[in-house]
C-alpha cells in the first residue's frame, strides 16, 4: 500500500462510518435520471422544506436508486444505530411521513417501506428478500455500492474498497502485460453487446507502434430501453474511472475520454465531479499515488447521434468531426482518435476491471451461464409492459421466464407478445419463444436476434408488429449517418413500405421488396446499416401471420395500425369527452356533451383522445377502404415529424417514460 492511499483510506473510513452511523437520522433521496423523472426533485425540495419548517433533527443525503424503478422516487432513512430502510415511492406529499418515521414515530411510513438495507426493523423484510431481486443469485458485484453510497463521494468509494486494487497494482509495479493477461484469463468480454475479449483489445493497443494513444469509454448508450451504463455512471462513477486508469496502465495510454451521450446530463456532471475529485486526491493526473504513473481523463458530450455508439462514429465525434462511422480498416487500435491508436470499451466493461483486479480471474469466472460460454455477471434493465420496471445484476443464463416472474408479470395480466433485447438493431422475438430464451447469447442468436448490451423490453399484446416496424424503421432511418445510400435510402424505403402497410395499402410484392432492401442493406459500411433489416426480417418470419393479416385482410388485431382502425364514441356519459374533443389536433371529434361523434375523414388516429377519455372513446377495426387523411405519410427530408404523430412515436415511448413501459398503466406500489 502506498502512503498516499493509506492517508486517503483513513479519511474515507471516517466519513463512511459517519455515513453508516450518523449522529442523527438521515433521509437519503435517490437522485438519478429516472428518479428525477419520477419526481425526486419535488420530493427533495418538499423534504428540505418540511425539515426546515419543523426544525427537525434530520439530515438529508443523496444516493442512487436501488434498481426498483417502478417505485421511484426512492428514499431511505438511516438511523444512528445503523438501521437503514428503503422506502418508495416517496412523493412530495409523503415526505411528512418520512420525517415522522425518522424522528421516532415508528411505523408512520410503514406503508411505503420496501425493505431494510441494513439492520433489522420489525415488519420490514431485508431488501434481498424482495421478489424483484430473486434473480440476483450471485449478489451484487458491479452494483454493490448502488443505493448504499453517495455517488458523488470519493470517500464512500474508497472506504468500500475503491482504488484499492489500483493502488496495489501501482505500488507493486505490476507488469502491464500481466494485467492484460488477467483480463484474458477472466474472459472479460465487451459488455456493449459485441462480446469481444477486452484483454485482446488491450493487447492490440499495447502493441501499437505509436507512443501517443488513447482510451475511450463508450457511454453513448442509445439503445431504447437500455440504461445499464447510466446506472453505473450516475451511481458509481469512480468505479469506471478506476477501470479506465487500470486499462491505461495496462495499455500504455496516458489520456482517456469519456464519451457520454448528451441525454445523460447527470452522468456528465457526476463523472466530471469524480474526475475532479480523483485529480484533487492524487488519483488522476501526474504521478498517481506517487507511483510515477500518469494519466488524465476528460469528458466529451455526444451530440445526439445514435450511430456514435459505433466505435468509429464515436471516435469521429470525439475529434469534433461529424458523427459518422469510418471505413474500416484502419481499425481504432491502429488509427483511432486523431488517427492515433485507440481502444474503445463499454462503461460496464471498464466497471468490471477493478473487480477482477481485486478479486482475481477465478472469482470472476464463478459467475457464468450453465454452458460456461458467457462469463461474469451482467446488469440488465427491464422495461416495457411489465409490472415492475427496473435493473438488476444477474449471472448469465437466467431464464427470461424467471425474469418476467420477478418483474411481476405483464401489466394487467396480459400476454407477452414480443421480446426486444439490445435495441432496434438486434431484432425482436415473439413471446411464444419465452420458454427457450435465457439471458445469454446463444438462444438469441439461434433465432437471428441478439442479446445486446443489457436493455430488454417486454412488449405486450397491445402492440402490433407492423406498427412497431413503422417506428423502428423511422428510428433506423433518422439515425443513419448519411454515408451509405443503402442505409439512409434503404431504411427510408423500409419506412415507406411499412407506413403504407400500416395505412392499409399493403401489397403482395411488399414482402419481396422488403427482402430486396434487406439484401442491399447488407452492403452497408457499419453495423447500423448491416443490422437494420434484422427486425424487418424477424417480422416477416416470426410474425408472419400478423403481417399477412395486414396485407391480405387489412386487419390489425391489436388495433394499432392507423389504416385499419378507427375511433368510435362508446360512452357518451364519459365526462372526459369534452377534453378529448379539445385535444384532437385535427378537430375530428365533433358535437356537444351527449352527442359526440368522430369524423373518420378528419381523424388521423393519433390516439390522444383515448388517452384522455379511455371509457368514452374506443378503437375498433375499421371497414376496408376507410380513408385515413394525412397520416403516416413519409416524413419529408429536412422537415420535423408532424405534430399529430408524436403520441405514437418511438422517442416518446422510450425517452419520456424510460421505465414506464410501453403504454402500460401508471406504476403501482408493491
Amino acid at each position: 500500500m502506498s502512503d498516499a492511499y493509506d492517508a486517503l483510506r483513513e479519511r474515507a473510513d471516517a466519513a463512511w462510518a459517519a455515513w453508516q452511523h450518523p449522529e442523527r437520522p438521515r433521509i437519503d433521496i435517490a437522485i438519478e435520471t429516472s428518479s428525477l423523472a419520477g419526481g425526486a426533485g419535488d420530493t427533495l425540495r418538499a423534504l428540505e422544506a418540511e425539515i426546515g419548517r419543523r426544525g427537525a433533527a434530520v439530515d438529508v443525503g443523496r444516493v442512487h436508486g436501488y434498481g426498483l424503478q417502478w417505485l421511484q422516487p426512492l428514499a431511505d432513512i438511516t438511523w444512528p444505530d445503523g438501521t437503514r430502510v428503503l422506502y418508495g415511492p416517496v412523493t412530495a406529499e409523503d415526505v411528512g411521513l418520512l420525517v415522522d418515521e425518522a424522528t421516532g414515530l415508528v411505523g408512520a411510513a410503514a406503508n411505503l417501506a420496501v425493505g431494510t438495507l441494513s439492520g433489522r426493523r420489525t415488519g420490514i423484510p431485508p431488501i434481498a428478500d424482495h421478489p424483484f431481486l430473486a434473480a440476483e443469485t450471485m449478489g451484487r458485484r458491479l452494483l454493490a455500492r448502488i443505493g448504499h453510497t453517495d455517488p458523488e463521494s470519493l470517500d464512500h468509494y474508497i472506504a468500500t474498497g475503491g482504488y484499492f486494487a489500483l493502488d496495489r497494482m501501482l505500488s507493486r509495479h505490476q507488469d502491464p502485460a500481466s494485467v492484460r493477461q488477467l483480463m484474458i484469463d477472466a474472459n472479460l468480454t465487451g459488455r456493449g453487446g459485441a462480446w469481444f475479449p477486452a484483454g485482446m483489445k488491450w493487447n492490440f493497443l499495447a502493441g501499437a507502434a505509436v507512443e501517443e494513444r488513447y482510451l475511450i469509454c463508450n457511454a453513448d448508450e442509445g439503445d431504447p430501453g437500455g440504461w445499464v451504463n447510466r446506472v453505473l455512471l450516475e451511481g458509481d462513477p469512480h468505479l469506471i474511472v478506476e477501470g479506465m486508469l487500470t486499462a491505461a496502465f495496462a495499455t500504455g495510454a496516458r489520456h482517456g475520454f469519456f464519451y457520454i451521450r448528451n441525454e445523460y446530463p447527470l452522468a456528465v456532471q457526476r463523472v466530471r465531479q469524480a474526475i475532479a475529485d480523483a485529480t484533487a486526491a492524487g488519483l488522476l493526473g501526474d504521478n498517481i499515488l506517487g507511483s510515477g504513473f500518469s494519466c488524465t481523463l476528460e469528458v466529451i458530450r455526444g451530440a445526439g447521434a445514435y450511430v456514435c455508439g459505433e466505435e468509429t462514429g464515436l471516435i469521429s465525434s470525439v475529434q469534433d468531426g461529424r458523427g459518422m462511422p469510418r471505413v474500416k480498416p484502419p481499425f481504432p487500435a491502429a488509427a483511432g482518435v486523431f488517427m492515433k491508436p485507440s481502444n474503445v470499451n463499454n462503461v460496464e466493461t471498464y466497471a468490471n476491471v477493478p473487480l477482477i483486479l481485486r478479486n482475481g480471474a477465478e472469482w470472476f469466472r464463478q459467475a457464468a451461464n450453465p454452458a460456461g460460454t458467457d462469463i461474469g455477471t451482467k446488469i440488465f434493465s427491464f422495461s416495457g409492459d411489465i409490472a415492475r420496471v427496473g435493473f438488476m445484476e444477474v449471472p448469465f443464463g437466467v431464464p427470461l421466464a424467471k425474469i418476467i416472474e420477478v418483474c411481476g408479470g405483464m401489466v394487467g395480466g396480459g400476454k407477452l407478445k414480443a421480446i426486444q433485447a439490445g435495441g432496434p438493431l438486434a431484432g425482436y422475438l415473439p413471446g411464444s419463444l419465452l420458454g427457450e430464451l435465457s439471458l445469454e447469447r446463444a438462444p438469441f442468436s439461434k433465432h437471428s436476434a441478439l442479446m445486446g448490451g443489457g436493455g430488454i423490453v417486454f412488449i405486450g399484446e397491445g402492440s402490433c408488429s407492423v406498427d412497431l416496424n413503422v417506428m423502428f424503421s423511422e428510428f433506423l432511418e433518422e439515425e443513419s449517418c448519411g454515408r451509405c445510400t443503402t442505409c439512409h435510402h434503404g431504411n427510408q424505403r423500409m419506412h415507406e413500405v411499412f407506413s403504407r402497410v400500416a395505412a392499409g395499402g399493403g401489397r403482395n410484392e411488399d414482402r419481396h421488396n422488403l427482402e430486396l432492401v434487406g439484401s442491399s442493406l447488407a452492403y452497408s459500411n457499419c453495423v447500423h446499416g448491416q443490422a437494420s433489416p434484422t427486425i424487418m426480417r424477424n417480422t416477416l418470419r416470426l410474425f408472419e401471420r400478423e403481417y399477412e393479416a395486414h396485407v391480405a385482410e387489412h386487419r390489425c388485431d391489436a388495433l394499432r395500425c392507423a389504416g385499419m382502425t378507427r375511433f368510435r364514441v362508446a360512452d357518451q356519459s364519459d365526462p372526459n369527452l369534452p377534453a378529448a374533443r379539445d385535444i384532437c389536433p385535427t378537430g375530428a371529434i365533433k358535437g356537444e356533451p351527449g352527442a359526440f361523434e368522430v369524423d373518420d375523414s378528419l381523424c388521423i388516429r393519433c390516439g390522444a383522445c383515448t388517452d384522455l377519455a379511455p371509457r368514452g372513446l374506443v378503437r375498433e377495426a375499421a371497414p376496408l377502404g376507410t380513408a385515413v387523411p394525412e397520416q403516416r405519410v413519409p416524413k419529408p427530408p429536412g422537415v420535423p415529424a408532424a405534430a399529430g404523430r408524436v403520441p405514437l412515436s418511438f422517442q416518446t415511448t422510450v425517452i419520456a417514460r424510460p421505465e414506464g413501459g410501453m403504454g402500460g398503466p401508471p406504476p403501482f406500489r408493491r
Partner: protein
Amino acid sequence: MAKITINGTEVEAEAGRRLVEVIKEQGIRITNLCYIDGLEPYAGCRTCLVDIEGGRPTSIQLSCTAQVAEGMVVRTDTPEVKRARQGVMSLIMANHPDRCLTCHRRVHCQPGEICLRDDVVTHRCLTCSKNYRCELQTSTEMIDMGEYEEPWVGEVRSYYETPPPEPDRANPYLEFDPQMCIICTRCVRACADIRHTGAITLSGKGSSTAIAFGTGGPVHESNCDFCGACIDVCPTATLMEKPNKWVGLAEEWTNSTCNSCSVGCTISYGVANDRPVIVRPDRLNQFSRDQICVRGRFHYDAVAENQRLSRSLARRGERLLPVPADEALAEAARLLDGVRREHGGGAIAVLGSPLATNEEAYLLARIARDVLQTPHIDFSHGSIHRAVQGAIHDALGVDRLPSDLTSVETAETIVVLASDLEESHNVAALRIKDAVVKRGARLVVVSPRWGELVPFAAAWLQPSPGFEAAAVQALVRAIASDASQLGEPVVPRGVTASSLESAVEVVRAAAASDKGFAVVYAPNPVDAAAAGDQARACANLAIAARGQAAASSLHYLPTDANVLGISDMGVGPAANGMAFSQIIEAARDGRIKALLIHDDNPLLNGAGSDDIRAALEAAQLVVIDSVRSTTAELAEVVLAELPFFAKDGTITNADRRINRQRPAGVPRREERDGVALLTALANELGGNFAYADAAAVTAEAASKVAGYLPYEQVRSGRSRAVGAEATTQPRLQAIGAPAAPEGDGLRLVVARSLYTTWEGASMRSEEADKMHREEVATLNPRDAEAAGVRSGDAVVLTDGTHEVSVSVRLDDGVAPGTVYVPHYYDGGAVMSLLPLEGTAAASVTVAVRALQLA
C-alpha cells in the same frame, strides 16, 4: 507489385492500391459514384461492388475500400455482382428523378414528346441540363438498370411527395440544385481535401442528409472561391456551371491554356456551335494538373459575345464606326506610314501585351524592328518585369530561371512574397497548401495583407507597404554567412518581433537542411523600383539558403500570363528605346506621334491614368483588340481581333513551360486572328511578311529565339524554354531603404483580385460586372473608426486631385494605416491615384472621406 486476377486476366498492380482504380485502369467499366481517384475512399454510394474470392462475410465487396493484395481474384461481371449493384442503384434512383434512367424508350424520346410512362416533365432526363453527360446516367446504363425490375416505381416515395428544395442560382458561377443530389459527397471532399477550402459540408442525418455550403445558406455567402472543383466531380446535375449550363454539352473538346495568370493551367474548352461553352481542367500542365480557378473556368464568358468586336472600327469625326476590314487595315497602315514618312520610325511607339501569344509578340517585335524601325516597344508592365529580371540577373547570373514550379510542391520549406498569392495566382497557392497539408511543408508568408494562404503558414510577416523587401532581407540577414553585402539594415516596419522570430526559425531550419526549399515571388505590377528590391531580397534568400543551387529555388510568377514569352520574343525597348513610362511622357509631350497597341490597355493597367490618358489623346492610335477597351475608344483605327480563346499559338508560363493555345471559336464576322492581322498590317507597311499561319511564325521564332520549339515539337505543359547556365557566381545584393511616404493619409495598396480578369475588366458591362465578385475597398477597423466609416459605407478615396468612390469593407487583414483596393475595381479607376510609374516615391497617401460626411 502484386499479381491479381481481374475477370480471369492476370494484372500487375501495386499492393495496397485501391482496387477500383486498378479495375478502371484495365478499361473495365465499373460504377463508382462517390470515389475520387487518389483520395481516401468514402464508400458511400456502395455501387462499386465486385466479387473478391474469399471475401468476408460475403465475397461481394466494395472495390473502393478493397486494397490490392497478392493473389487476389476479382470478378466484376458475375450475375450476382450485377444484381447487387442493381439493388443498390435502385435505392439511389429512388431519391433522384429516375423515370428516364430506366426507360427503354429514352434514346428515341425528344424533349417535347408526351411521355408514354406518364412521367412528369421536370422529372425527365431529357429536361435535365446534365443529360448525355451525366455520370449517374452512364452508371445506370453500365449495369443495365433498364432490365432490372423497378421495385420503387409507383411507390409512394418521399422524394416525389416532398416539394423539391429550391435551387441556388444567386451567384454568376455555380448553380446548386439539391434536388438532384445523391449525397455522394464528392464535392465535400473535393473542396476540403483537394482545394483545402472546406466550403461544403454534409448536414443532417438519415434521409435529411444534405449537402450544404457554409452554414447552409446561399453559396456566395459561404467561403466558396468558385474554383469549380466540385463541379468536376459531381456525378449529377446538382453542381453545375451557371454560364452556359443548358448548352454546355460539348460537341468537341479543344486543349488549350488559360491566360488569366502566369501559372498557365492547361484547360480544355468544350465547344458547341463554334464557341466555348464549358471549361474543364486539362492535366497536361504537371503543376496545375486537374485544378483550375474561377478565372480559368468562367472568364471565357466574362465578356458577352455581342460585346466583342466583330468588325474593325475607324474614326469618322468624333465617332468610331465599323468599316470593312480591308479599309481599316489600309487606314491603319496609312496612318503609321504617314508618321513614319514625316517624323521617322522613332516617332512611333509599339505596345504589346502579356495576353498575346508568343507568335503575335514575335510579329509585333518584328514590325517594330524591321518595318517601322522604331526602338520604342514595350508593354504596360514592361519595366516591372525588367526590374525583376535585372535583379535576378545581378544576383544569380541568369536571364531565365531554371526553377520548376512542381518543385514547390515537394519543398520542405516555402517562403512566399506576394500581395495575395491566393488571389493573383490561385492554383500556385493551392499547390503550396498541398505541400503544407499533405507533406507537412513549413510556409512563411510575407504580405502586407491577410490572404487565404496565411492560415497555412508557420509564420506570417506583415510589413507595411514598401517594407516587403526589408522583411525578406531580415530573414536573409539571419542566415547569410556574410551580411556585409546586404547593405544597411532596414527595420521592416509593421513586422512584429514574434512573427519575425518564428519566420527566422523556419528559414534557419531550411538553411541547415538539404531538403527542398522554394522562394515564390509574385511582384505586384504597380511599382517597378519596389519590385526590383523585392526580387533582390528573394534572390538573396535563395542564395543564403541554397548557395549555388539558388536559381532552382527561386520562382518568379509574373502577374500576367505571357510576360516571359513576349519578353523572350522581343517586346521590350531596343537599344536607345524608350520604356513604357517614357513612351507615355513622350507621347504626351508630342515627341511620339503614333502608337501601335496590340491587346494592351494602358488605361487599365498603368499607374498614372491622367498622364496616360493625356498621352493616348495626344498621339494617334492604332489598336488591335478583341474588345472595345477604354484605350480603343481613343483610337483612330481599331482592328478587330479574335478573342484569346479563339487564338492559335503558344504562351510561356511562369516556369517557362511552353503551352499551346488552340482555337475554340471561329470568327463571327470580320475579326481575324492576331497573327493574320499583324502579318497583313506589316505587309501593308511594306514589310513583306510571308507567314501563312501561327505555325509558320513559331517555326521562325524557334530558330531565332533560344529555347523555343516549332509547333510539332511543342508538348504543352512539358516543353520548357529554359535558358543558358549561369554565367557568374550567385551574389548577394544590397537593398536600400524604401522611400518615405508623403503626407499623413492612408497608404494605398493595389493588387489583382481573384474574380476579375484583364479581359473582363476591359469592358464596362453588366455581363462582365456579374463575373466580379463584389469588389470593395478594404480598411482596417481602427482606421475606419477614426474616419467614422462603417462596413458597407460608400467612401471617396482621394489624393487631393482625383477621387475614386468605392464601398468599403472592414477587415483587420489589412494593416492599420493602409487601404486596399482591387486593381481592376471599376476598370482600374484606382490607378488614377498613383503617379506614373517611376516618376515619384513608391507610395502615395490618400485620404478617406465618407460620402455621407461630405
